[in-house]
């Protein structure tokens, strides 16, 4: 019998979501306990700051340029390499319960296998997972959760905030007390909500396994991704009026705009509403209109959702313990990318490579019976690309050569963890963006390829130790020119400069 692997992800969650990472609002005792027994990575980055490319990296162990899912709406091929398949081939039972998003959700021709499988009520093997029970952020669509909600609590379908509006753009309509976009009072009982459904389905799957089974279970919560509409019965947990504004939000408008203006021009254009560079934020919402109270309300609801996730994790861990598996189970907790959540007066995500989107929670609680030696805190940079090789190492399987990451280090100074890179490419309705980012030695550099608003000479450079909120762009600072050039050189060695989208895999849906 080998080590079992419980892999838990959230969606669009910031590093500071959990108490163990310095979060002071959401109560997350279950994740905190895992961190206390394991390793907290202090500098974990995604390889893309949107869902589909990032999730493709997690399952393939490859950088975006290799797996080819270069923006949301590009499908991960059914036969793409999969760590789940590797583990399955070595005797593991494999499951993915929750949000996969390897296929697009918007699927008017029902062309994608995840949607077809779920529509037909099947749970069969796909992309290396023996068992799939899929969910998204709402009760509409084909996925298992939506079908369950429709069939059992039909009233619930309309209780969620409609993520897309009548024109199929991301909905900018405001709600709640402050009129913040994608905020909504959800009358749904907690038991109907996707977070608890995923915990329930995970418990059922775990309990279906024999005691001596080796298993890999990816539990994938759709929260705290927008819309921010947790069950209204739970919102009392974090009254938004009592909340301090997040440190990344610059309350003084002129200072905020001055800071944005020091960054490449698409920042200000989005802030002012003159440019929509990506599909993931509402095109009709103008960030400059956001009020401090709207920032507070969004943050409060995110904290509520994080508490619900933590409680769901507690329930799943209870099952692991009750089955007698705790000492044999490695638990890894992370997310696919972050959320701006008010930083710089912005929400959602997009081509903005700063900590709100880039710095992720990543916690590895090794199985006690593995008797691994580790430090509780690792500051060397790591990426989600390192997860698949880590799963292989836990399972005692040699990582296939197609995996590009390295097993997560158990302390600083081990292995190849000197730098981490992140890519962004998008071409959407005539707006083209290309970003490349490298973090190394406490500095973060971002280069821009030529596109709709960039000529290819722009960039961002931050001293992450002295300027943790990335307010001082030192790209044009002559005193760090040599350092900048070194970092850019390392970045260009690590990833292709700009994806030539003419030859890239096709975008087949918006998300």
């Amino acid at each position: 019998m080998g080590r079992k692997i419980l892999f838990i992800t959230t969606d669009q969650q910031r590093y500071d979501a959990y108490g163990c990472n310095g979060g002071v609002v959401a109560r997350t005792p279950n994740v905190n306990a895992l961190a206390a027994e394991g390793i907290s990575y202090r500098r974990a980055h995604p390889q893309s700051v949107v869902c589909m490319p990032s999730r493709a990296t997690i399952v393939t162990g490859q950088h975006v340029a290799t797996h080819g899912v270069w923006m949301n709406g590009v499908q991960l091929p059914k036969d793409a390499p999969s760590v789940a398949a590797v583990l399955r081939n070595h005797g593991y039972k494999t499951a993915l319960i929750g949000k996969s998003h390897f296929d697009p959700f918007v699927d008017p021709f029902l062309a994608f296998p995840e949607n077809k499988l779920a529509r037909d009520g099947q749970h069969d093997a796909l992309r290396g997972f023996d068992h799939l029970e899929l969910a998204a952020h709402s009760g509409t669509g084909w996925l298992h959760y939506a079908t369950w909600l429709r069939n059992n609590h039909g009233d619930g379908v309309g209780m969620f905030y409609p993520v897309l509006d009548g024109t199929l753009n991301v909905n900018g309509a405001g709600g709640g007390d402050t009129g913040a976009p994608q905020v909504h009072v959800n009358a749904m009982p907690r038991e109907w909500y996707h977070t608890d459904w995923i915990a329930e389905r995970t418990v059922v799957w775990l309990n279906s396994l024999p005691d001596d089974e080796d298993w890999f279970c990816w539990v994938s919560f759709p929260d705290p991704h927008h819309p921010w509409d947790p069950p209204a019965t739970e919102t009392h947990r974090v009254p938004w009026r009592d909340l301090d504004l997040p440190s990344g939000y610059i309350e003084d408008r002129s200072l905020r705009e001055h800071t944005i203006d020091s960054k490449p021009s698409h920042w200000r254009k989005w802030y002012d509403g003159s440019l929509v560079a990506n599909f993931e934020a509402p095109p009709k919402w103008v960030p400059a209109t956001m009020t401090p109270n709207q920032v507070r309300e969004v943050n409060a609801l995110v904290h509520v959702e994080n508490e619900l996730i933590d409680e769901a994790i507690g329930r799943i861990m209870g099952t692991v313990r009750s089955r007698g598996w705790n000492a044999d189970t490695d638990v890894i907790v992370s997310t696919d990318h972050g959320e701006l959540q008010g930083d710089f007066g912005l929400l959602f995500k997009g081509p903005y490579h700063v900590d709100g989107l880039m710095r992720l929670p990543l916690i590895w609680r090794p199985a006690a019976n593995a008797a691994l030696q580790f430090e509780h805190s690792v500051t060397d940079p790591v990426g989600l690309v390192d997860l698949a090789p880590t799963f292989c190492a836990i399972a005692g399987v040699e990582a296939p050569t197609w995996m590009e990451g390295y097993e997560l280090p158990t302390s600083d100074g081990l292995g190849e963890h000197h730098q981490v890179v992140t890519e962004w490419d998008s071409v959407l309705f005539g707006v083209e963006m290309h970003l490349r980012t490298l973090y190394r030695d406490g500095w973060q550099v971002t280069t821009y390829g030529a596109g709709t608003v960039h000529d290819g000479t722009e960039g961002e450079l931050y001293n992450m130790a002295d300027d943790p909120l990335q307010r001082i762009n030192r790209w044009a600072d002559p005193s760090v020119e040599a350092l900048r050039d070194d970092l850019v050189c390392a970045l260009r060695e690590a990833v292709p400069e700009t994806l030539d989208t003419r030859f890239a895999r096709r975008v087949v849906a918006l998300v």
Partner: protein
Amino acid sequence: MEFNFGLLGVTEPVGSIREHVIIEVPPDLVWSRIADVENNSSWFTSLQTSWCDLDNATGRPVRMVVGGTGLAMTEDIIRVDSVQRRLQYRLRPIGFITHHLATIDVLDVTDLTGAPTSMVVYSTELSPAPLAVAFGGATRQALDTLKTQTEAAWASQKVGA
């Protein structure tokens, strides 16, 4: 006044798709498949089935198509022009779709290659604009299927001759 038409972004109400494919087959053979309006689903494989009928209200022929989701949709056939080798059709508003017009042109580009060669250009405008991406994917797949099928048929004809 300065007009910047490059920054219109996703708020455009009408989406626009244009896909094309080069097929090494005489244009009349390619056109015969497209002009076989009723059997559209034989190469537009995102559709489960298709057939033609008469619209009771207008007395004009319409094409009925059933998508992958099982949803039945009605298309008005606007033009079947065998001289220009142009087909135009319009999907009637259904669900989110409020506007649609598709045009398929089969161009003779034999002069460019020296062998019988067609270029099929498939253009669609539709609202809401975000659906254009999904329709574009289906259109691409359809053109690739059309190429495979017609080139195989042409190869068989040549062998038979």
